């Protein structure tokens, strides 16, 4: 418990995260997981094709894998940690994989992840939504959906509400309106 608290307070340590084995022609994370470094231009058509097909499971799994790094750095699940500690470790991992700058916002009771400086993989930002959904689900141990509600914002919601939120977002509702609808329906 004390070790976990110390880990939460500590900053994420990126030192030695990657191991470059030039002889074997492999790059591994410090957990031994092999990764491939590719340019966004290579990824973009692949992700777009997967989104059109309607299966973004690999991206969700990719998010799960990154969350495990964050959990390991946190010293446990994110549920009992402070929001600041969770964000500190999560954003460090996301940045290490070159996916952009992760931030966390609270709009009323709603939680919103914001990912800026990220490579544009698909027009509707569904790939990042799948990635973040997998990331937060693994981080918290719950099924979570992250729905795009703007260029770089993703609303954290229950999977059963994701389609409704997505419809509102696609219909042109702003994030504030969507949150108002969610909170109003709760009353």
């Amino acid at each position: 418990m004390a070790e976990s608290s110390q880990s939460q307070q500590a900053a994420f340590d990126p030192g030695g995260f990657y191991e470059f084995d030039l002889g074997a022609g492999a790059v591994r994370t410090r957990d031994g997981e092999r990764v491939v470094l590719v340019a966004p231009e290579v990824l973009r058509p692949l992700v777009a094709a997967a989104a059109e097909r309607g299966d973004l499971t690999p991206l969700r799994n990719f998010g799960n894998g990154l969350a495990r790094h964050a959990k390991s750095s946190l010293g446990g699940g994110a549920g009992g940690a402070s929001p600041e500690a969770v964000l500190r470790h999560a954003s460090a991992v996301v940045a290490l994989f070159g996916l952009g700058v992760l931030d966390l916002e609270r709009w009323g009771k709603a939680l919103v992840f914001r990912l800026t400086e990220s490579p544009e993989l698909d027009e509707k930002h569904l790939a990042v939504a799948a990635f973040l959904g997998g990331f937060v689900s693994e981080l918290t141990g719950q099924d979570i959906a992250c729905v795009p509600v703007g260029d770089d914002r993703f609303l954290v919601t229950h999977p059963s509400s994701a389609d409704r939120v997505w419809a509102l977002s696609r219909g042109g509702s702003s994030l504030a309106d969507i949150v108002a609808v969610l909170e109003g329906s709760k009353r």
Partner: protein
Amino acid sequence: MSAAQVQKLEALLQRVTTRRNEPRPARGAAPAPRSAAPETKPSATFAPRPASQPPPARSIADALESPTAQYPKPAATKPAASKPAASKPAASKPSAAARPQARPQPTAKTAPKAAPAAKPAAAKPAEPRRVARGSFAPPRQAVAKVTSPHRELTFGDLLADALSLRPED
């Protein structure tokens, strides 16, 4: 004058004359001890006085049974009564610290004033006291407790709030 009184007088005079005839001590010499004269010793000092023995004469006035000799007149006490008056100026001279003690005793006129002086003392409890702490507002500690519930929100708390927002179908 009765015969008994005359007899007493005669006895007294006889004693006086015998004392006069005694040889006087040399000038400057110590006076003869009084204990040498058995008559001067108070009666019944060591033993009860026999009833038959008449009480020794103490003085001419005693022999005459004059009440004035035994009980001095009130006039004799006047000088003593005037002493405090003489000490009054002396008492007023000392330092200010001694002044309260030198204050004149309350006279018949001031005595009634002392009674009203007791009134404020009795009224003190009735005086409006300072408002007790917490009368109109809770003490600061309580305010602090109320205003800072203080459990730090965790990421899990925020997530639970977020997941509680579900749109109606």
